[in-house]
C-alpha cells in the first residue's frame, strides 16, 4: 500500500511525499496554496477516465518501439520511470510518470474497420445485428451511477465523443456528450429555469397516457431522459464542466492559466482537465476523445509535430494532477483506440489499420503499475512467443475489478439473453497483482 492510499493526508505528509516524489513530478504542481494547506479529504469514489484515440493510434511509434527492425520507423525509445520499460522519445513527460502507468503490449483484436473496431474495443463484443451492446461507460453508469445519490449530472460523460451507445441498458445510461469547452448547449435561461417546474408538471401529466398506451419501452425512456436533463440543468455540479468556475463546496476552483497550460491548451488537454473536475464531483466514467490518428500518410511528421506533444502533455498532466490530489488510486486511466497500425510503413510513409498486435495503456486505479505486460515480436507483426494475447474484454474486466464492479456480473439483453460483463473477459493478472 502506498502512501497515496491515505486520503486523510495532512500538509506535512503531503509535503514529505512531494519531496520523495520530486524525481517523478518535478515541474507540475496542481494544488493551489489554499488546497495544499487544507486537509485533503477525498471520497473514495471510483472512477475511470478513458482516453479514446479515434482513428487508431500507431502504438508501434508510441509504446512499443522496434529499433533495428525494418518496421521501426523514425523514433528512438527512451527509458521511463518504470525499470526496463521504454517508450517513444516524443513522450518524455509521460515517461517520468510510468511509476503510475502500465502498458499492455499484446492486444490482438481482429477488427480493423473503424466502426467495428470502435464497437469491439468499447463494448468487448463484436457487432451483432440483433443486439446493441452497451459501451463500457454505460455499464459503469448502470452499475455505479445508481448508488451515487448525490450525483445530479450524468454518470457517463463523453468529451468530444458521440459514438457510444447504452444499448440494452437503456437511454438513461447513454453518454452525455459535451465539447471540450464545457459549454452546455441549450442550457436554460433564468426565465426558462423559473418556468421549468410548471412546464414539467404539465408534461408529466400529458405524456403519461402515451406511456400507458402499450407502445413498448420508448415512451417511458423519453420521460426518464427528461428527468436526467432536468436534474442536470438545475444542479450546481454543472460547475464541473466550466473550468473557469469555482465552487468551494464541491472542491472546485477556477483553473489557473498555469494548470490549463500544463494540460495543454488543446481540445484533448482541456477535455482531460474537465474530466478531472467531473471525477471530483463524483462522475464515475469520463471519456475524453482525441482524433486525427488515422495516419495512412506522413505518420512521423504528424506524430512528432502534432499528436505526441499534445498527448504527452495531457497524459502526464492528468496523472500528476490526480496523484497530487490523492485521486489517482481510485481513478483508473485507460488509453486506447479502435486498433493499432501496420508495422509495415506504406509508400506514403503512413501506417494502415492493424489489429493483430498492438498496445493499450492503463494507469492509476490501484493497479500494479510501472510495467509492460505482454510483448510483440521483433518486427511488431505478431504477439511474441510465450506472450498471452489480450482482448478488449480483458482490459475492461481489469477496469471493472479496479472499480469494484464484480467481474461475474451478468446483464440481460432485451431478448432475455444473458450478457456477461466485458464479454466474460479476465482481469489481467500482472496488473491486479
Amino acid at each position, binding site marked *: 500500500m502506498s502512501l497515496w492510499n491515505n486520503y486523510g493526508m495532512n500538509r506535512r505528509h503531503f509535503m514529505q511525499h512531494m519531496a520523495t516524489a520530486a524525481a517523478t513530478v518535478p515541474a507540475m504542481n496542481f494544488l493551489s496554496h489554499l488546497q495544499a494547506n487544507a486537509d485533503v479529504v477525498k471520497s473514495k469514489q471510483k472512477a475511470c477516465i478513458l482516453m479514446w484515440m*479515434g*482513428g*487508431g493510434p500507431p502504438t508501434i511509434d508510441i509504446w512499443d518501439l522496434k529499433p533495428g527492425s525494418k518496421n521501426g520507423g523514425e523514433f528512438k525509445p527512451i527509458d521511463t520511470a518504470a525499470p526496463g520499460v521504454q517508450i517513444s522519445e516524443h513522450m518524455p513527460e509521460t515517461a517520468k510518470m510510468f511509476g503510475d502507468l502500465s502498458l499492455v503490449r499484446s492486444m490482438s483484436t481482429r477488427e480493423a*474497420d*473503424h*466502426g*467495428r473496431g470502435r464497437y469491439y474495443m468499447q463494448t468487448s463484443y463484436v457487432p451483432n*445485428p*440483433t443486439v446493441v451492446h452497451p459501451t463500457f461507460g454505460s455499464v459503469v453508469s448502470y452499475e455505479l451511477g445508481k448508488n451515487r445519490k448525490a450525483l445530479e449530472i450524468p454518470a457517463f460523460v463523453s468529451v468530444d465523443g*458521440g*459514438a457510444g451507445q447504452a444499448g*440494452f441498458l437503456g*437511454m438513461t445510461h*447513454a*453518454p*452525455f*456528450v459535451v465539447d471540450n469547452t464545457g459549454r*452546455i*448547449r*441549450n442550457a*436554460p*435561461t433564468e426565465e426558462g429555469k423559473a*418556468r*421549468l417546474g*410548471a*412546464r414539467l*408538471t*404539465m*408534461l408529466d*401529466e*400529458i*405524456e403519461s*397516457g*402515451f*406511456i400507458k*398506451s*402499450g*407502445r*413498448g*419501452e*420508448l*415512451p417511458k425512456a*423519453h420521460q426518464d*431522459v*427528461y428527468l*436526467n*436533463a432536468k436534474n*442536470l*440543468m438545475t444542479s450546481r455540479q454543472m460547475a464541473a464542466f466550466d473550468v473557469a468556475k469555482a465552487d468551494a463546496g464541491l472542491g472546485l476552483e477556477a483553473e489557473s492559466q498555469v494548470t490549463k497550460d500544463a494540460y495543454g491548451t488543446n481540445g484533448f488537454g482541456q477535455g482531460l482537465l474537465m474530466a478531472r473536475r467531473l471525477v471530483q464531483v463524483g462522475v464515475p466514467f469520463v471519456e475524453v476523445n482525441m*482524433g*486525427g490518428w*488515422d495516419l*495512412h*500518410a506522413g505518420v512521423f511528421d504528424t506524430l512528432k509535430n502534432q499528436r505526441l506533444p499534445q498527448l504527452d502533455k495531457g497524459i502526464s498532466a492528468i496523472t500528476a494532477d490526480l496523484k497530487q490530489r490523492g485521486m489517482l488510486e481510485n481513478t483508473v486511466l485507460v488509453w486506447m483506440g479502435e486498433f493499432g497500425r501496420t508495422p509495415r510503413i506504406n509508400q*506514403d510513409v503512413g501506417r494502415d*489499420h492493424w489489429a493483430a498486435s498492438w498496445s493499450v495503456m492503463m494507469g492509476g486505479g490501484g493497479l500494479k503499475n510501472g510495467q509492460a505486460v505482454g510483448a510483440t515480436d521483433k518486427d511488431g507483426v505478431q504477439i511474441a512467443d510465450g506472450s498471452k494475447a489480450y482482448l478488449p474484454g480483458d482490459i475492461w474486466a481489469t477496469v471493472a475489478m479496479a472499480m469494484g464492479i464484480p467481474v461475474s456480473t451478468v446483464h440481460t*439483453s*432485451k*431478448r432475455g*439473453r444473458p450478457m456477461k460483463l466485458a464479454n466474460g473477459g479476465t482481469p489481467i493478472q500482472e496488473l491486479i497483482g
Partner: protein
Amino acid sequence: MQSGRSFFRLFGSLGLVLTLAGFDSHLSADEAQKSEEATVAAAGAEVPLGEFIDQQIRQGWQDNEIEASASASDEEWVRRIYLDLLGRIPTMEEARKFLADESPRKRSVLTEELLEHEDYVRNFTTVWSNNCIGRGAPQRVSRTGMEKFFREAFARNRPWNEIVVDIVTASGHYEENGAVNYTLAQLQNADEGVQLTAMTARLFLGLQVQCTQCHNHPFNKWQQDQFWEYNSFFRQVGKIDHRKLDPNTGRMVDDYSEVVWQEFSGPVYYEKRSGVMQVAYPRFQGLEVDPGVGVDRRVEFGKLITQPVDGAPAQIAQAMVNRTWSHFFGYGFTRPVDDMGPHNPASHPDLLERLSREFVAANYDVKELVRWIVSSEAYGLTSQYNDKNKIDDPGAGEVPLFSHMYLKSMQAEQMYDSLIVASNAHKSGRGGWGAQEEQRRRWMQQFVVAFENDENDESTTFNGTIPQALMMMNSELMDKACSVERGSFLFESMSSPGNEAQKIQELYLAALSRNPTKTEIGKVQKMLKNYGNQRLMGYQDLFWALLNSNEFVFIH
C-alpha cells in the same frame, strides 16, 4: 456457356428483343415480341402485388403464432403518413380536413396528394442527400449541388436506375452537375478510391465489402480480389479543386471542385496479407470489362449494376426496396439494411424478391414502390401492441414481423420542420428553398459529430439523449414555437373565437394531430386554473408540454 451468360447480362438492359436476337438469329423480332408478351401474361397469373404483400406478411404472423394489432386510427395514420412522406407533421388544417373526410378511400386519396406535394420532394431530397454526403460538411462538397440533383430527380420521379447511374458515373462542376458531390464526399482521402468503392457497394447495392479490402470476407462470398476488381472501376476518377483570386484580399481562396476523368488502364495492384502483390482487373459479378485504354470504366459499371444477378432482380433494385421498406417501418428485411447477401438472410425473402422484380418491371418508379408499401395492410396498423404480438419487438433484437407499427424517433430534420409547422412559422414566409435549407442546415450542425477517419463516419447527438432534450426544452427554436407574437400559432389561436375546451383542442391538433379525450381536456383545464389571470402563460406552457411530449417526438 459462360460467355452466353455474360452476354445476356451485359445487354439485358437493351431489352429482350436484342438479347434474343443475339442468341437465336432465326427468331424474328415479332416472335421475340410474342415471347415477351407471354412472359408478361405469366406474370399476370401471379397473385396481384398488393395481395401478395399482405399474404407474405400474414404468413409471418401465422408461422410465429401471433396476431396483428388493430388498424391505426385516422389520427394516428395521418400524422404517420405526413411524417414518413413529407418529413413533417400535418398542419392543423391538414389534419382537420383529413379527419373530417368521410370517404372510405380517403387514405389512398391523401397518399396520392402527398406524393405530389412539394414537401415530398424536399423530404426525400434530405434523406438521400444525407445518405450520399452525410450531414456534416465534408471538404469541397456542395450540399446545394447534391440537393439540387435530388430535388430534380424526385420532382420528376426519375427512374431509380437512372438516378443511380447518374450518380456513379457523374463528372463535372459540383454545382452544375450536383450528382458529382456523392463522389467528392467519398474522395476526402487520397485512398485510391477505397472509400468510394465501399460506399457505393453499401449504399446502392446493399453490400458490405469494406473489410474485404484487406482480407476475404469472413462470412460471405466476397473475396479480397473482388474488392480490388470492383475498386478498379473507380480509378479513373479524378478531382480538381479550383482556386480563385479574392479581389478584396488579394489572396487565393477556394472556388468550385469538379470530378474529371483521368487516364487509367490495366490492372490495379494490391497486397495480400502475406505481403505478396496481386493484380485485379475491372470485373463485376463475374462480368469483365475491357481494361484497355480509352474505356470509361464508370460508364461500364453503370451498365453492369442494372443487370439481374443469377436470375434475381438487379442488386440496386433489391437494395432500394429494402431501404425504402425500412424508411416506412423502421426496419427492413435485413439488419442492417445495407448488409444483404447469403450470410444475412432476409426476413421475408419472397416478398423482397417480388417487390424488387416489380420495381424493375415498373421501370424503377420510386413513387410506385412507395405506394405499394404504404397501402399495405401492415403499414396501416396501429403502433399499439396487443396481447398476441408482444414478441414482435425488433427493438429487443427479434426479427420484425410487422404485426404492428414500430415507433420511430423523428430525425433532426423532421423535428425542425415539424416545429416550424406546429408554430405557423411556415406561413410567415420562410424565404425560398435555399434560405430554408440554409437555416435548417445551420441548426443541424449542433447535432453532428464527425469522426475524422477514412470512412467519413459521423454520428448524431440527436438520438433521444440529454442534448436533444435540452434543445427541446430550452432552445430558441422552441421559444419561437411557443411565442405569442403576432402571426404565431398561439397568437392566432388565442385571438380567434372559441371557449377554453376549443382552444385546448386546437393545441392538441396542432401538436399531436389529434383531438384530446374528454379526460385530457378536464385534466388540462384543472392545470390551467393554477395560472389564474395569467392564462396565456398557461397555454404557452401547455403547448410547450405538448411539443416536448413523447407522443410528439415519436413517429407512431
